[in-house]
């Protein structure tokens, strides 16, 4: 597979979220947040504009607090590499309701497309398995969408997937950036508000 065949991030995220069936979504900072907003604003999306590395820990906390709801952590390869240890924390806690998807463009896309580490030799699915997350999937084709949705939203977790995505210029899609407003709305959607 060459990078010319990599998936379109907005097409993939939109198609996946259309199948989320009420799952809560914790997107990482930057492009995964823009992708979720572009797919259609929802109160169940916890948008992020910062705190790099905390997508998976935050999603783990939500999943532990809400065992009856499915939770999707949706991040990029840069943030996942920064927070690799959190995969071992997830492996140990073993929440059945958590799926993790890494949109892997092998680059620091937000900062000028500097090459990242996943385009060289680092293998995120192998690292996730090594951290105790048994069920992984490497997505390289939209033909795998059904399998990806099954793994993220239905298969007993924790589950982990990567999707190789192309470096593309997408239209800006910027959601609310007031963290207090984002958190309040999310807690309302979860039923956690005081």
């Amino acid at each position: 597979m060459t990078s010319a065949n990599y998936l379109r991030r907005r097409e993939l995220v939109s198609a996946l979220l259309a199948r989320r069936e009420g799952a809560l979504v914790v997107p990482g900072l930057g492009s995964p947040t823009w992708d979720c907003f572009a797919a259609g604003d929802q109160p169940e999306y916890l948008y992020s504009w910062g705190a790099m590395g905390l997508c998976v820990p935050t999603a783990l906390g939500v999943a532990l607090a809400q065992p009856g709801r499915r939770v999707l952590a949706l991040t990029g390869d840069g943030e996942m590499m920064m927070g690799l240890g959190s995969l071992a924390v997830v492996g140990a806690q073993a929440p059945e309701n958590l799926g993790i998807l890494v949109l892997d463009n092998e680059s620091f896309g937000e900062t000028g497309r500097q090459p990242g580490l996943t385009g060289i030799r680092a293998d995120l699915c192998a690292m996730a398995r090594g951290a105790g997350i048994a069920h992984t999937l490497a997505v390289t084709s939209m033909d795998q969408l059904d399998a990806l949705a099954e793994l993220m939203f239905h298969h007993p977790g924790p589950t982990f997937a990567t999707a190789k995505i192309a470096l593309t210029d997408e239209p800006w899609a910027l959601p609310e950036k007031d963290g207090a407003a984002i958190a309040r709305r999310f807690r309302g959607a979860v039923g956690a508000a005081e």
Partner: protein
Amino acid sequence: MTTHDWSQDVFDAMGARGIATVATVPDGGLTGLLTLCEADPDTRIVTLTTEEEGIGVTTGLWLGGQRGMIAIQSSGVGNCINALGYPTTLRAPCLLLVTMRGQWGEFNPWQVPMGQAVQPVLEAMAVKCFPVDQAEKVGETFAAAADLAFFGNFSAAVLVSPRVIGVKGFGK
């Protein structure tokens, strides 16, 4: 050093406030509290690889409607600096219990730079600090910090002095 069981006081204050998860990179001074938590089927310990993960986990718990706290050694505070902006930005509560090194009678020079910087660093990140150096006062101090954090949605840290924990020395 006194023999007052401050760990039991903290554990009781946690229970009274519904704080049912402790995210931790352990420290010797936390052994008593973590042992109580392990023995309690209603308390969850989330062992971390690095302390900043705890900020994400406890913020996520609050977003999902539960209360958690972070229990770490002073050296781990430095690992949390950028992450501490996260609960502040979300207006989420954040409660830390920090057992201090690098202060009173420290024998290990490698602990001193971060230990001395803990309170200024936390205050620079808008964390309210509650230092305590008497075992009898740890429980009430923890309770006060927890109430400030969870009622007002602030970040608060209880800094437990080596005078409470006992000065480490490796027999030197």
